[in-house]
C-alpha cells in the first residue's frame, strides 16, 4: 500500500472525483426540495427546478410588467458597467502607484507608509462617506470598488517591482538607459502580466463591494435585485442570480488568464526572472 501522499488518481478518475461534490450537492438539493414541496407545495425556501426555470424565464426572457425591461439583462449590464469601471480605474491607479513606489526610492519613501495605512481602512466603512460626498448615484459605487481594490493592486505591483532583479536595472543603465526608459521598456512590460494576476485576485473583492453598494442604494443591478426579492423570500430568483454571478466571475477569471498567456507568452512559459 502506497503512502497517501504518493497516491495520485488516474486522469479520468481525477475528473470524476472533481465532479462528484457537484453531483452530490445537486442530489442533496433535489432531495431536500422534494421533501419540503411534498409537505407544502407553496414552499419558497427550496424551490424545485420547475419554479427556478419559471423564474429564470420571467426575469430573463419576458419583459417586466411594470417597466417593460428584461430585468436580468438590465441588471447584468448596469452591474458589469460599475464593476468594470471600478476595476479599470483601480488597475490603472494601482499600476502607476505600485510601479513608481517600487522603482523610485524617493517616491517609495514618500508614499509607501500612506499606501500601507490606506490599505488597512475597511472600504465598506467608507461607504457612508462616499454616499454623502458623491451622492447615491453611479459614482459612489464605482468609487467604492476602486477604493476597495486599488491599495491591494498597488501594494502587489510594488512588491513585484521590487522583485525584479536589480541586475536588470544595472544592465539597462550600462547600456545607457535613463530612468523613464527603464520604467517603460524594462519594468512596465514585466509588470503587465502581474497586473492581470492582481486583477484576477481582486475581482472577488470587487464583486463584494459592488453587491454591498447595490444592496444599500441602487435602482437596478444584480446585487440590488437579490436584496429586493429577498423581501418576498423569492429563492427561485435569488438562486439563479447567484449562479449567474458565479458564472460571470468564472468567465472573467478565465478570460484574464487566457489574455495573460496570449499576450505574455514569456511569462507563463517560465521565462519569469
Amino acid at each position, binding site marked *: 500500500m502506497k503512502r497517501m501522499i504518493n497516491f495520485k488518481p488516474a486522469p479520468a478518475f481525477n475528473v470524476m472525483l472533481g465532479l462528484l461534490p457537484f453531483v452530490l450537492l445537486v442530489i442533496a438539493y433535489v432531495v431536500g426540495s422534494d421533501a419540503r414541496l411534498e409537505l407544502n407545495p407553496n414552499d419558497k425556501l427550496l424551490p424545485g427546478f420547475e419554479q427556478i426555470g419559471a423564474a429564470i424565464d420571467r426575469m430573463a426572457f419576458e419583459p417586466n410588467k411594470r417597466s417593460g425591461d428584461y430585468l436580468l439583462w438590465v441588471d447584468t449590464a448596469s452591474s458589469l458597467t460599475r464593476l468594470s469601471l471600478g476595476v479599470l480605474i483601480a488597475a490603472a491607479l494601482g499600476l502607476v502607484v505600485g510601479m513608481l513606489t517600487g522603482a523610485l526610492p524617493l517616491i517609495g519613501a514618500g508614499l509607501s507608509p500612506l499606501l500601507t495605512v490606506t490599505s488597512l481602512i475597511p472600504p465598506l466603512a467608507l461607504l457612508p462617506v462616499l454616499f454623502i460626498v458623491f451622492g447615491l448615484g453611479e459614482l459612489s459605487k464605482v468609487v467604492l470598488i476602486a477604493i476597495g481594490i486599488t491599495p491591494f493592486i498597488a501594494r502587489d505591483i510594488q512588491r513585484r517591482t521590487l522583485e525584479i532583479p536589480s541586475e536588470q536595472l544595472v544592465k539597462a543603465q550600462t547600456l545607457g538607459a535613463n530612468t523613464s526608459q527603464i520604467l517603460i521598456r524594462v519594468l512596465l512590460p514585466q509588470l503587465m502580466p502581474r497586473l492581470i494576476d492582481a486583477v484576477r485576485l481582486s475581482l472577488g473583492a470587487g464583486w463584494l463591494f459592488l453587491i454591498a453598494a447595490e444592496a444599500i442604494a441602487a435602482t437596478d443591478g444584480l446585487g440590488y435585485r437579490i436584496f429586493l426579492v429577498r423581501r418576498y423570500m423569492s429563492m427561485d430568483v435569488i438562486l439563479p442570480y447567484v449562479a449567474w454571478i458565479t458564472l460571470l466571475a468564472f468567465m472573467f477569471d478565465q478570460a484574464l488568464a487566457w489574455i495573460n498567456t496570449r499576450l505574455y507568452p514569456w511569462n507563463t*512559459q517560465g521565462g519569469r*526572472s
Partner: protein
Amino acid sequence: MIEAHNLWKEYGDNVVLERLSIKVEEGEFITMVGTSGCGKSTFLNFLLGTQSQTRGELLIDGEPIPQEPSPNRGIVFQQYSVFPHMTVLENVMAAKAFQRKGVSGYLFGKARYSAQIEATQLLEKVGLGHALQQYPHQLSGGIWYSITLGSL
C-alpha cells in the same frame, strides 16, 4: 585608465577590503583570482558604481568613478543579463534604443528599421540568426552570453 588608490571598504568594524591599489591601462585584460569572500565582487561593484568605498579613491581617466552605472562600464552578469520579456532580437534592439535619448526605450520609424537590420546582422554573425524571435528562457545559458555580448 582605471586607478585605485588605497581603497578600503568597512561595515562598522568589519573590514571587507583594505589597502587596494591598482592601475589598469585602457585595453588591458585582467583577471581577478581570490578565495570567496575576499572582496572581488565588492571591487567590481565599486567599478560599476553600485557600491562605494569608505576610504581611498577610485578614478577612471583621472575622474572619480560615477556613483551609478553608466554606458562607459559594461558588465555581463552570470544571471539576469538578458531581459526575459524580450525576444533575442528585441534584446539587442532595446540596447540600441537605450543608447539614444528618448522617453520610452522603444524605437520608431526609420530608427527602428535601421536598428532592426543592424541587430539582425549582428545576431546572424554570432550564429543566432535562427533564434531572433525566441525568448531567452527557450535558449541555453551559453547563448544568453552571446546575446548579452552582442547587445553591449
